């Protein structure tokens, strides 16, 4: 009798468990939702740190956006080229076709190049200084304030303030875009990593005003526009703008720019080499004279 009680108890509760389990298993098939298999595949190759660097809510949000074609295969800044290649394989896209980007600071108004309206002794925060009269202490209302809001938000140590202006270390930059949002002046934007030519100025002032405040600002002289053989650089609203889809990175505009507002590493290297040769030649001449 007592054993029968035990058996019925076990059998009824166990039976209920089995019935519910079977029912749930069956229901999960009936109510199965078609999830794009690419989403789960992409999510499995993403780093899974849920850092939000891509701008989507976590890695699953990023995976969904990539699968729907709303984000490029290299949307994950943390995973870099390796993850982009894996995601590209899942999506059937050649990851190399998507050019990697880096952040670039469109200002070269260093302490020596640019004038200041007044001395700023306040909170060490660009956004705070930018609210002050004239948009901060810098003579040019468009220039980098150099208090490093971008440096503070960069998790990869790619930004630093050099001589009063933020500079991106392209080897460390993963193009997460956090600095772009942090800059109150909107000075930072993406450019293709492979392209070495970039306009280091954001001033929309006329040439005369730029000349008064900065030795290296774009004065909208149109010389770059006239010299470009590929129709890739245009002066828009008093500022030279490069169209990277056309730019062949020849560096001619950088060479011709009278204010050296356009940066090109090869041109800079050539100029540095020339200067070094002249410097080496100069003492030689003096020794000859003696």
């Amino acid at each position: 009798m007592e054993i029968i009680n035990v058996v019925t108890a076990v059998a009824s509760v166990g039976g209920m468990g089995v019935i519910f389990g079977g029912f749930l298993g069956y229901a999960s098939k009936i109510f199965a939702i078609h999830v794009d298999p690419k989403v789960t595949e992409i999510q499995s190759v993403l780093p899974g740190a849920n850092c939000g660097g891509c701008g989507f809510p976590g890695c699953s949000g990023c995976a969904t956006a990539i699968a729907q074609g709303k984000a490029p295969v290299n949307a994950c800044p943390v995973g870099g080229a390796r993850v982009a290649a894996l995601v590209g394989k899942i999506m059937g896209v050649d990851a190399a076709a998507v050019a990697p980007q880096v952040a670039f600071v469109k200002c070269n108004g260093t302490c020596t190049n640019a004038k200041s309206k007044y001395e700023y002794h306040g909170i060490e925060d660009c956004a705070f200084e930018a609210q002050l009269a004239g948009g901060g202490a810098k003579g040019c209302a468009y220039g980098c304030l150099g208090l490093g809001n971008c440096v503070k938000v960069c998790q990869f140590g790619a930004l630093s303030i050099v001589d009063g202006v933020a500079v991106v270390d392209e080897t460390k930059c993963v193009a997460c875009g956090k600095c772009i949002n942090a800059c109150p002046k909107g000075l930072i934007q993406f450019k293709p990593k492979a392209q070495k030519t970039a306009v280091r100025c954001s001033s929309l002032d006329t040439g005369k005003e730029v000349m008064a405040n900065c030795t290296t600002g774009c004065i909208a002289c149109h010389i770059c526009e006239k010299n470009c053989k590929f129709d890739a650089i245009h002066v828009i609203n008093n500022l030279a703008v490069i169209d990277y889809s056309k730019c062949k990175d020849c560096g001619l505009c950088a060479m011709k720019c009278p204010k050296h507002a356009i940066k090109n590493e090869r041109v800079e290297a050539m100029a540095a080499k020339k200067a070094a040769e002249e410097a080496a030649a100069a003492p030689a001449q003096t020794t000859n004279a003696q």
Partner: protein
Amino acid sequence: MLTKLILILLAGVFVNNYILSQFLGICPFLGVSKKVETATGMGVAVIFVITLACAATYLVYYLILVPLHLEYLYTIAFILVIAALVQFVEMFIKKSSPSLYQALGVYLPLITTNCAVLGVAVSNMQKNYNFLESIVAGIGGAGGFTLAIILFAGIRERTEHNDIPKTFEGFPIALIGAGLMSVSFLGFSGLIKL
């Protein structure tokens, strides 16, 4: 009959409030009450689940446990039913109404561990309610839970930015607020005798 149902409903909401009078379901009450918005989501999900759970546990108790003389197994059986039910409801909503699923979000699976659900089912059984009365008691109890958590979330939203002594910041002041709410609901006690 109708009078009794209305009394059961009101008793569940005010007099025998599961949180403030019977101290059941305290974990979601404290955990999900930081914002009125999330508290409302939790409350709606709880109303949904408790009402269904009352019906399901009633059927399991009177169709399976009583005929087999296994009434003493009600706790484990009810937990089994509630867990399976919550899972099923989640699946069903995910399929039929993705917007409702998004709105309820994480609260739906959280309810599995809400002891108020089990509490309502057990109290229905102990009071020998019939099927309809069980469901009404479930709606009442869940309504009381929702009322309490939304009011409490409102209080917490306001106290958050108040000038509170350092030692009382965060949970201590929330618990004091919950205690005062409970004291105020004590005013309803004895209003309805069932």
